[in-house]
């Protein structure tokens, strides 16, 4: 599990923006991985099984009642700023990317995460339970949406 904890942390970061929620989600995913381990039969890669458990947990994980409610943005509705600030530093770009991903819905987050992890369309389809064609179309649309969100944040790269 230690070998994969970077992946789990990234999943927590894209699904929750609050550090306490990220921590709680990480605990929840670890718990579910532990509880579900009996179901891992070795006929698929460990990482694929882990992605399934982690995403299923992240998607049914809701913010605590007292904290801010989950956002479920279906389409960007912000206006573009008049001037966009170019960003060259990769680390800075990644920080902005994480901020933008927060505005995607839960399925789009899973899609973009798996894409960034270098999973193939077929593998993403198996993890999400949708067709590879559907993955391709959704991924293209999600990337466009993400680019638009980054622009609404005032950045360009």
């Amino acid at each position: 599990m230690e070998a994969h904890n970077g992946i789990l942390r990234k999943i927590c970061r894209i699904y929750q923006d609050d550090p306490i929620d990220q921590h709680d989600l990480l605990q929840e995913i670890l718990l579910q991985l532990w509880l579900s381990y009996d179901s891992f039969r070795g006929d698929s890669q460990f990482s694929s099984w882990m992605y399934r458990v982690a995403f299923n947990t992240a998607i049914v994980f809701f913010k605590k009642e007292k904290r801010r409610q989950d956002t479920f943005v279906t389409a960007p509705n912000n206006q573009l700023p008049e001037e966009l600030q170019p960003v060259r530093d990769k680390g800075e770009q990644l920080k902005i990317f994480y901020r933008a991903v927060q505005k995607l819905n839960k399925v789009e987050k899973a899609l973009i995460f798996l894409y960034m992890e270098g999973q193939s369309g077929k593998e993403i389809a198996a993890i999400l339970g949708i067709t590879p064609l559907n993955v391709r179309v959704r991924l293209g649309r999600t990337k466009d949406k993400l680019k638009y969100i980054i622009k609404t944040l005032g950045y360009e790269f």
Partner: protein
Amino acid sequence: MNFDNLKDAWADDRTDDIPLAVRKIPLDETASIVARLRRNMQREFLLQVIGFVCLIVVVLWSPGNALSIFIVSTAVFLLLTQAVYYFSRFYLFYKAVGRYDLGLRKSIYKITYELELNMEIYKSFNYCIAPLVALIVAGSMTTSLFVIFIVSGVAQIISFFLFDLYVRTRYGRRLAELKKIMEDLETEE
């Protein structure tokens, strides 16, 4: 913007700022809808058992004539029969709920279905037992058939609205969000 150019920075990102496993297993604090459902079921089972014990005490201490004793005894029998049936359903559901290793689409379907089904069973259980509990309590305190009838009828009506409101308040928003995700996954683009 080129996403492929960002992949290197993504791969190098260590994300060490989120501490790993510094607390004990957070079963009591989890925000997972399935864990919350299971936790609520445990609490409610305990409350129901306490409620039944209180009811038995009320029945044993109550004075009454032959008719009210007959009514109360019949209601207790019906109540226990229904409770055994529903608790066995709840127990089976409790053991089966929450499998996280399926594909996302199947998993969301399963959780949404289980949540909605459990909400309906819970409402129907309380809708069935509320008038019986009212009948037993009223039958133990008065011998007036009219009063017993009115109390049971009012309990039936109140329970319908009360438990509907209760489950909607407790799980309604989560269920709506799960359905939204389900619809999203269902849409073939």
